């Protein structure tokens, strides 16, 4: 311990509590230090040990997820996950939440969510090629919802459009449980050479530590701590903890970093995300088993008289920390000069194993790096399983006339077209968007070839609330299915675990059981987790959100021209449903939207059937036997068929089997199902039988209406009007 540091006033337990540390954690920090930490040091402990940075409640569970596989180059633990997509190419991707900031200040919260996830990806050497987002808002009736949608959509668009990365897909739904705590999960996918991946572990004592990008201000101080606490009525007062984004600087930073990455200058690189300079420097030193010395007065600042504490905890955006080879420092400086970005040598790597901070020559913090990371608290929090809900027999559920029910369903907020949202995102820039938003998965072609990636995000929170294990498995399975439906081979996922307060056993139970379901699905579908993010304490005044483990998946298509979209293509083509339809109505949208019931067990997830059916469908698409394909999910079969009709304007004549109640057949949400079209069904049905995959003809495409045999009809134009009217009308109010 330096005598100078000791001269800084020792921190108190009260301060520790204000920073979100428990008494036990404060004692642990004192023990590690061998003395009471000063204010700056305490600040560093508190953010490093925040839930957001340390995963202290979730780590024991996250470890259960499969994270390896033939395609995995780098699993969780780095800035983003890296997978091998062949030909020497790698896809780098991750999804991350910006829930609390987006509720307080929707534009900046969402915008900086996009900025942060972009940095996580290009930090590793990838050019970002696509963004997606998974959004959950409160009930449309809630007075804040409209304002939040408006701000979040503008923020995502404002940032993504300016940096010039297409926003190609995502999802958006509504539930009253998000009234006081919306979810904004942003995903970025980037492309790199597999042999040019950049990591964050510091190396080479004596090497310079370089700060690049925007200047440091007082914005976002203690953002990571805010993200690790419940909300209350006074959350408006936390607005100063929300960062402000500057997408223009981010665009310059992307170009400058990628230009520098063409050289061999970089030893290690890390973006300054949550907990800013603190977590970036500690993580780099920690991973390298080394120390780091920083002269905080050298940090480019845009405000005067910032204290060491403020500099270390600022979450100002668009900043990166790099360790360079000393002989390449000037080359790097020239590149950042060209892009008109700050470039400052702020310290050096040491072999002391300590984080030493000085300010104008005076030591203001001196702490061991290793224990800060390895001795972070880990909790095996008590949990209780969610009570099982009864199965609901289809016959016990009131039957509605199918066309009338369809009209209500496709106009309900969760199923209504989200065109109003995605038309505000530039989904075409870069010139590689093969399948645009609105389908099962976005498809982006990779430069200079035929290869393409399929991308989607998925989760059905109402299933997760009713049965977290089934819901966790379903989220992974539906994501896998969505990629399969465009003809892709699903390769790996990123997960964004959004849950309530983990100190409540029932919430911890939701988390643990969701992970269990995800684990089973990932193993069965050969679909490892390579990156992710945990967002806990999504509660306001003690009321938690629906458990929402959002899954972002990446799949590979060998030839972009062979991917299929969901719209019916030609009159006369045969419509086939793959997978078994039992008519499962528990937790269905039919039950919720038409009968006002959110009850029953959600549909079972048979992972063997999921795999078998999906592999069959993908093989048929690749063989060119399929002209359109759509997965069956929210709303059931008739909704899926209506979506296929609306996508192209071509209608269909349809018939239901005699042995099932029509409302269960058309609106049950059984899993592992797809709708396909083909010119002639015989070969396809034979192949299905051979593969032990259930498949049946339900109709024929053609005309300008959906017509049920022996029943009613509705024009596709009317369907489209109903489907597209809700959101613009709602937002115009």
């Amino acid at each position, binding site marked *: 311990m330096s005598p100078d540091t000791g001269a800084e006033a020792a921190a108190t337990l009260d301060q520790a509590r204000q920073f979100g540390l428990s008494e036990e954690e404060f004692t642990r920090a004192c023990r590690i230090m061998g003395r009471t930490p000063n204010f700056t040091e305490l600040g560093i402990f508190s953010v490093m040990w925040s839930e957001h940075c340390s995963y202290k409640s979730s780590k024991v569970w996250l470890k259960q997820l499969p994270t390896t596989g033939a395609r995995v180059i780098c699993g969780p633990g780095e800035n983003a996950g890296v997978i091998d997509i062949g030909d020497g190419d790698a896809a780098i991707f991750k999804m991350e939440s910006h829930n609390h900031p987006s509720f307080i200040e929707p534009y900046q919260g969402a915008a900086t969510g996009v900025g942060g996830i972009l940095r996580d990806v290009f930090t590793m050497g990838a050019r970002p090629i696509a963004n997606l987002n998974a959004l959950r808002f409160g009930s449309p009736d809630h007075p804040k919802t409209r304002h939040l949608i408006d701000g979040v959509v503008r923020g995502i668009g404002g940032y993504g459009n300016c940096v010039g990365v297409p926003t190609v897909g995502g999802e958006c739904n509504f539930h009253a449980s998000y009234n006081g705590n919306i979810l904004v999960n942003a995903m970025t996918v980037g492309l790199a050479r597999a042999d040019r991946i950049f990591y964050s572990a510091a190396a080479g004592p004596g090497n310079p530590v370089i700060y690049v990008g925007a200047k440091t201000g007082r914005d976002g101080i203690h953002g990571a701590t805010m993200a690790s606490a419940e909300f209350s009525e006074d959350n408006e007062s936390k607005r100063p903890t929300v960062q402000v984004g500057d*997408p223009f600087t981010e665009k310059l930073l992307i170009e400058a970093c990628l230009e520098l990455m063409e050289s061999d200058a970089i030893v290690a690189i890390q973006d300054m995300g949550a907990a800013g300079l603190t977590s970036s420097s500690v993580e780099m030193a920690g991973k390298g088993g080394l120390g780091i010395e920083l002269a905080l007065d050298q940090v480019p600042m845009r405000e005067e008289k910032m204290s060491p504490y403020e500099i270390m905890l600022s979450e100002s955006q668009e900043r990166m920390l790099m360790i360079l080879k000393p002989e390449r420092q000037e080359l790097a400086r020239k590149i950042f000069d060209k892009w008109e970005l700050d470039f400052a040598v702020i310290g050096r790597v040491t072999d002391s194993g300590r984080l030493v901070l000085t300010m104008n020559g005076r030591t203001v913090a001196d702490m061991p790096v290793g224990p800060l990371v390895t001795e972070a608290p880990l909790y095996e929090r008590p949990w209780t399983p969610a009570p099982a809900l009864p199965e609901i027999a289809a016959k016990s559920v009131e039957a509605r006339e199918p066309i009338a029910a369809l009209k209500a369903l496709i106009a309900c907020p969760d199923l209504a077209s989200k065109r109003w949202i995605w038309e505000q995102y530039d989904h075409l820039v870069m010139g590689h968007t093969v399948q645009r938003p609105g389908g099962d998965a976005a498809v982006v072609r990779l430069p200079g070839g035929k290869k393409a990636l399929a991308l989607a995000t998925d989760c059905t929170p109402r299933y997760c609330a009713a049965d977290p294990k089934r819901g966790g498995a379903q989220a992974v399975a539906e994501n896998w299915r969505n990629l399969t439906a465009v003809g892709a081979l699903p390769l790996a996922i990123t997960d964004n675990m959004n849950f309530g307060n983990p100190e409540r056993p029932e919430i911890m139970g939701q988390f643990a059981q969701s992970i269990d379901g995800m684990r089973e699905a990932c193993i069965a579908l050969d679909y490892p987790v390579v990156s992710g993010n945990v967002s806990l304490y999504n509660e306001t005044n003690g009321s938690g959100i629906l458990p929402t483990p959002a899954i972002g998946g990446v799949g590979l298509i060998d030839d972009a021209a062979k991917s299929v979209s969901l719209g019916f293509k030609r009159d006369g083509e045969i419509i086939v449903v793959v997978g078994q339809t039992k008519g499962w109505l528990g937790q269905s949208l039919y039950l919720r939207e038409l009968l006002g019931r959110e009850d029953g067990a959600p549909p079972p997830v048979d992972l063997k059937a999921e795999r078998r059916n999906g592999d069959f469908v993908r093989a048929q698409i690749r063989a060119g036997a399929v002209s359109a394909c759509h997965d069956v999910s929210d709303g059931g079969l008739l909704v899926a068929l209506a979506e296929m009709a609306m996508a192209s304007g071509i209608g269909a004549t349809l018939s239901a089997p005699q042995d099932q109640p029509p409302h269960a057949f058309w609106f049950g949400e059984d899993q592992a199902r797809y709708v396909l079209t083909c010119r002639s069904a015989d070969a396809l049905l034979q192949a299905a039988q051979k593969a032990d995959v259930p498949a049946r003809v339900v109709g024929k495409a053609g005309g300008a209406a959906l017509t049920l045999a022996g029943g009613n009809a509705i024009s596709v134009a009317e369907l489209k009007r109903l489907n597209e009217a809700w959101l613009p009308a709602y937002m115009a109010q």
Partner: protein
Amino acid sequence: MQAAIILFPGSNREQDVHDALHRATGKAPLKVWHRDTNLPKADLIVIPGGFSYGDYLRCGAMAAHSPIMREVKARADAGTPVLGICNGFQIITEAGLLPGVLLTNRTLRFHCKDVHLRVETSQSVYTRRYNAGQVIRVPVAHHDGNYFADKDTLDRLEGESRVAFRYCSEAGELVDQANDNGSARAIAGILNEGRNVLGLMPHPEDATDPLLGGTDGQGFFASLAEALA
């Protein structure tokens, strides 16, 4: 034909137009950083889409004052074709190469979608492969595409057949609904007096590949390839 694409900090659709020109002409365009003082000899100068200088201050206003724009103006005056797409259109109006200004869309929102355009004149190096009156479908992606000029200027543009494209319905009718951003007289693109400078908001470069949602923009680049061969 050799094209040069000028890059400003914040340009982001340079690759799209690069690829479209490359496909149409067989020759890769040069990319020129705006601070490079020497603008190479080129048959076509392109200012691509994006958010130059973050669109801070006003779209295109800062880039218009970059030193390279003096050279671009001199070349344009000497007859070299200069194409400004989207943010490029904003930049060349700010630089005075074209009259008028691009205001914020009347919805006050960003629009990214396919639109229909009526080709108003085939008398230019950009449109000679189209027929006047032809309807094409290409995407737009902008927040500030609402073309505005005073009545005299608009009359003059029309009188001199300098309106190159207008927003229209699929059938080619000039209906208010098709004019999402609220442009004066549904103008989507205009030519200068010499007909060698074109500014347009839509992105024909993003409609040149059948896999990417359409090929109606191919005629635009085929026109250039033919005229400047």
